[in-house]
Structures are given as C-alpha cells and as structure tokens.
C-alpha cells in the first residue's frame, strides 16, 4: 500500500540494512511460530469440542408418522379411543411419543395399540397417570407383521387434547370411537435406549445413504468424512504457508 517505493527509500548503511533484515527475519519466524501455534491449538480445541458434543447420551429419533405437531387437533374424552392409519412402524422404534394436553389437570393413563392389516396386535405401549406434554412410552412388539393403524385409548377421566394437524393428510384419517375426525395426531418414534452420537454412527451411516439418488449408499457418510478431512488438511496447509 503506502510503503515507500524502492527509489524513495533512503539508503541505509550496509550494516544497518543487514541488521534490519535480521530483525525482520526474526520477527517473521516468531509470527510463523505463533500462526502454527494458533492453528494447532485451534484444531485440537475444535476436535475436543466435537468429541464432547458427540458424547452425551440422549433419546434418538426413529421417525414419525409425518404429521407435524402444529396444533391440538383431536379432543377425546376419558374412555374414548382414537384410531388412525399409519404406514408401518420404523424397524428401530423402541419408544413412542404423543403430545397430550389436559387443560392443566393430571393426565389419565393411556394405552396405544398398533394393529396389522388383519386387525391383529403388532405392538403396544402404555403410560400411567402423569403431567401433560409429550408422553413417551416404551413400545413392546408382539408381532413382526407391518402395522397399518394405531389406536390410542384414554382411560376414564377428563377430556384431553392431542397434538397434530387440524386437517387430515393421511389416507386412513383419524376416527374418534369410530367417527371420522378432521385432524390427525402426531406420533414420534424413538430408538429403544438413549445413545451417544458415537453409538449412533452406524445408524447415521445407513440413513445417510437413504432418501437420495440410488447411487448413494452406506459409503456416503464415510466419503463425506474423508472429504472433510481433506478440506481441513488442505486449508490448514494453505494457512500455514500463506499466513506470514
């Protein structure tokens, strides 16, 4: 920028020029060392934080019935049953969750039954009394047949409200004690146990290849990781060379 041009620069005695060059080189070396230190420390810190971030154990999703919990959409009274169609149970579902509002009162016990096309029991879940909100229930499979519908029975007690969509988008829309309803309820599925991201990696690897073009597969996540490592190596090398 506004540094003096070669012609404008005053001529220094040779000894002074050498001394200036030596000082500049020393400064350059210390700057390079500091840059390397920042890059090394930064990389280690980031990897450490990433490792920590992946370590907490928490519920991990196994999917949903694709109904967004936009509003309270069904209002069964105690003793009533809501049934609606579903497109199977996810293979790794071990828990099931529905949003139940109780207008501030204690939630009555609930029971869910997943039924096959022939009406036979495929899986069931139940929860005792509790507060309102998302109710997570362990799912017990009794058959390997695909589930085609689900029924949620509210035990005797006050009226409740189920979270879901107010306009039904499912082929087998919800029915309250057999009567067609305008909305659907949301169902979330979770894997059987809480897991860390490390434990979930094989599952992520599988899921990464799904929902994409057919030439993607379970190699995709590994490929992405390899590309990220490549990008990091190239960018760090570039920074080491250029930041001086």
């Amino acid at each position, binding site marked *: 920028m506004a540094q003096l041009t070669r012609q404008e620069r005053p001529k220094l005695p040779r000894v002074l020029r050498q001394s200036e060059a030596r000082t500049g080189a020393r400064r350059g070396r210390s700057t390079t060392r500091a840059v390397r230190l920042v*890059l090394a420390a*930064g990389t280690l810190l980031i990897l450490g934080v990433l490792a920590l971030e992946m370590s907490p154990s928490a519920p991990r*999703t196994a999917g949903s019935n694709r109904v967004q919990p936009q509003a309270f959409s069904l209002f069964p009274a105690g003793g009533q049953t809501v049934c609606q169609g579903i497109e199977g149970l996810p293979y790794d579902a071990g828990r099931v969750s529905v949003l139940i509002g109780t207008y501030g009162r204690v939630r009555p016990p609930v029971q869910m039954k997943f039924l096959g096309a022939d009406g036979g029991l495929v899986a069931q879940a139940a929860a005792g009394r509790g507060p309102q909100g998302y109710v997570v229930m362990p799912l017990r499979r009794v058959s390997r047949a695909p589930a085609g519908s689900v029924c949620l029975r509210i035990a005797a007690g006050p009226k409740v409200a189920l979270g879901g969509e107010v306009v039904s988008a499912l082929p087998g829309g919800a029915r309250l004690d057999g009567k067609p309803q305008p909305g659907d309820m949301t169902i979330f599925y979770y894997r059987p146990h809480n897991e860390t991201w490390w434990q979930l990696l094989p599952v992520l690897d599988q899921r*990464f290849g799904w929902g994409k*073009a*057919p030439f993607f597969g379970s190699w995709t996540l590994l490929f992405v990781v390899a*590309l990220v490592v490549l990008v990091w190596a190239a*960018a760090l090398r570039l*920074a080491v060379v250029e*930041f001086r």
Partner: protein
Amino acid sequence: MRRGRDLLRRIPRAGRMCFLVALVNSVVWGLIVPPFHVPDENAHFSYAQYLAETGKPPPEGAGAPYSAQENTALAALSFFAVIGDPQMRGVITPTENRTLQAELRQRLSPLSGGGSTSTTNEPPLYYALAAVPYWISPSHNILGRLAFMRLLSALLAAGTALAVFLFLRELVPRWPWAWTLGALMVAFQPMVGFISAGVQGDNLLFLTSALTFWLLTRAYQRGLSEKRAIAIGAVTAAGILSKLTFLSLVPGIALAVLLLGWRDLDRGRVRAVRLVAIAAATALIPIVAYGILNLTAWHRGSFLAGGTAGAAGSALPSGQHVTLRESLDYIWELYLPRLPFMHREYFPGGYPLRTLWLDGSIGHFGWLDYGFPGWVYRLGEWLLVPFGALAAISVFRLRAQVRRWLPLFATFAVMALGLLVAIGYAGIRYQLSTGNGFAQARYLFPLLCLYGLFTVLVARGAGRRWAPVLAAALFMLAMAHNLFAETLTISRYYG
C-alpha cells in the same frame, strides 16, 4: 485451450487452492443436505428441469408448476412434512427408502406446465447452466440429476471464493495473507456453504457480484482498458440475467464505470467515452435480447417477464397501496433502530440488524427451521464488538491508503445501498401481502467481497506483525463455525 491454461497460471497457487477448498467444502454441504432442503430448491429445480426439457424458460401460466416426476419425489421424500419442523425427518428407514426408489422408478413425465413459482419470473442464465449437468447426468433418476446439478452450485461457490481472493489481491497487493484469509472466510461461511449445497439461483448471483467487485477494483487499480470494459459489461449482464436482484447493484456499477472513464480522461476524452460505451453496450445487448425473447419467442408477458412487478408495484392484493413513506420507514427499520416519528413497528419480534442479519448470517438453516443454540448467536453478537473495533482501528491506521480508494468505495457504497433499499422495497410489499417476513441474511451475500475485506481489516487491526496470527485465529473460528453447522445439519436430518 492454451490461453485458458495461461489465465489459470496467472492466478496464484493460493488462489487456486482456495478455489479447490471451497469447491470440496460445497460438495460436502451438497452431500449432507437432503434433496430440496435448500430454500426454494424445489422451485429452482423445477425451472431448470422445464428449461432442460423444452429449451425455453417457463411461460408462468396457470399450468402445473412442478413435473409429475418432481411431485412424486417430493411426496415420497415427505418433503412438505419435514420443512418447517425440526423434529421431523425425511427418509430414514429402509422401508421408506424402498418406497421412494420404487416411486422414482416409475416412468413419469419430467415436463411441468411451466406454471408460476417463486422463481419463474427470474431470468434463465443459472437455469440454462443447470440444464447442462441435468442433461449429462449419467443417471436419469430425478434425484441423480439433482445431485449432479448441485455440483454446478458448488463450482459457482468456489468461483465466488476465488473472486474474493482476486478482489483482495487488487486491493491489498502487499498482504498475500489477506487474499487467502478473505477467500477462506467466504468459503467457510456456513450460510454460503448451505446455499451452495442446493440447486439455487443465488449462487450465480453471488459469483457475478463478487466478480463485479473484483473487475471494478482491478480497473481502478490498473486503469480501464477495452478488455476490462468488456469484462465489466459482460459480468453485469450475467448478473442481471442470473437474478433480477442484481439490478439493485447497477446504479453503483454505472457510477463506478463513469468514475473509471473520468480517471481515464487524461488519456483522451474520446477513448474514455468509447470505453464507457463499450461497457454499457456489452451489458445492455444481452439484456435487450433477453427482453425481446420474453416478448416474442417465449411469450412471458413483459420485457422482464414480470420479474420486477411484484417487488416494485405499490398495489397490494387487498387493493391497498404502499406509500413512499411506508416504504422508507420499513427500509429504515429493516437495518436501523426505529425513530420516534415512525409510528408503525414493522419488526416487533426484535431488532432486525441482530435477529435477521447477524443471527441469520451465523446460521438460520433449512427452510429457516433450525439453527444453533441461543448462546452461539449471543457470542457472535459479542464478538462483533471487538471485531468492529479492530476494523475501525485498521481503517484509521490505513487512512492515507483508504483515501486513495475512497472514490471507488463510494461507488461500492452506492451498490450496497441499492441492494439494501431493494430488499426493503420488495420486503414491505411481500410482508403486507402475505403477513410473512421477507428478508433473509443470504440476500446480503452479493456483498461477500466486502465481508472478505472486513475480516482482513479485523486481522490487520492487530498490527502488521500480529495480523497473520489474528488471521489464523479468525480462520479457525470460521472452520469451527462451518464444521459445527455441518454436524448440526446432520443431526437435523439424520439424527
């Protein structure tokens, strides 16, 4: 061929490396983000598919906006159930994947009716380019084609990072660390990465804007020549033909070209006028040709295919009119604190400079449905204070050099102002018509060169000796930001 190789060799090795790093990073993003989950990707894909199948842009009639092929893919991906709710996942079971692949194996029409979507009134340049990977994709599966088309966006994002590198090289030729820093900061900006993941016309807008900043700076530094005038005109035309948002930069570009001509007056008045005319003609000819095609061959209603009507008209669907004062109030409030005499509060949810622009740049991903935990945004806001101070210190220290660049930066300010006003002008009409917010942080990305420059000024604020060290720290911050945005995205869609 040899000429191309020579041109490539004239780019420093660091610039070529920045291009490659940005390219691979964008490819990574493209593999992480599920199909159609970049904002409006379904509409952008639809436009490109129509153009690839028919050779012309969509007529914007009452026809079906999406092909049967795309509709089937969107349904099988449960696309509309997933967007907007971060709890929802797409295809994450083998059964769902088998269903999806079976649906996609059907022989469905790839041709839509070319009906109106949020993108159909845009010019066709990006979509014409996207048609190339659509055609050459070895897979005729719609998701296979989409994956190949996403590579084009990655290339454009890499080009943007390179353009920022070249821009900074012209501006601060004696600070090589700064060229690399600016380019890498753009390459690892996670919202840039996220947008470059998808079939999205904004990617060409970002590239042409960055190229414009570079070419204007180069011409200011080295003088306006015939080649440079043609390049500026061509990039301006490409920008307008990529997305009409670019029109908001045109007053600033015109001013810059006039400034360049004026600086060249001492080499002859006729020469200066000729060069300015060359730049203007190079920009105008393709645009006029596009307008004539819209009116005659493509029957798209008007010269710009209605591309500015929705944004610039004052009438709302309700019959009400937006007054000039309302527009000015809205534009002010979009960026600055509301003044006492502005009686309408357009952004009751919070101060847009923070909630929209800063937080949005830190990361509002997906269809604006997921982001970082709150503390990340607060940290970003706090970091902006010392960063701003360091940049201000740099400008003060370098005031003698800054003075030299001031005329050019005045034209850049006009470009930036044009963009800010255009966002606000379109925003109030959209907000009053639909009740939804309009602006997103990515709308400012045509100014990515200035973002790159800002990061350089921040680093230089540490002084000449420590600038590379602070540059390394900023670079690590950007790498961390990008990496955690990627892991966040993986957890959003697959976890």
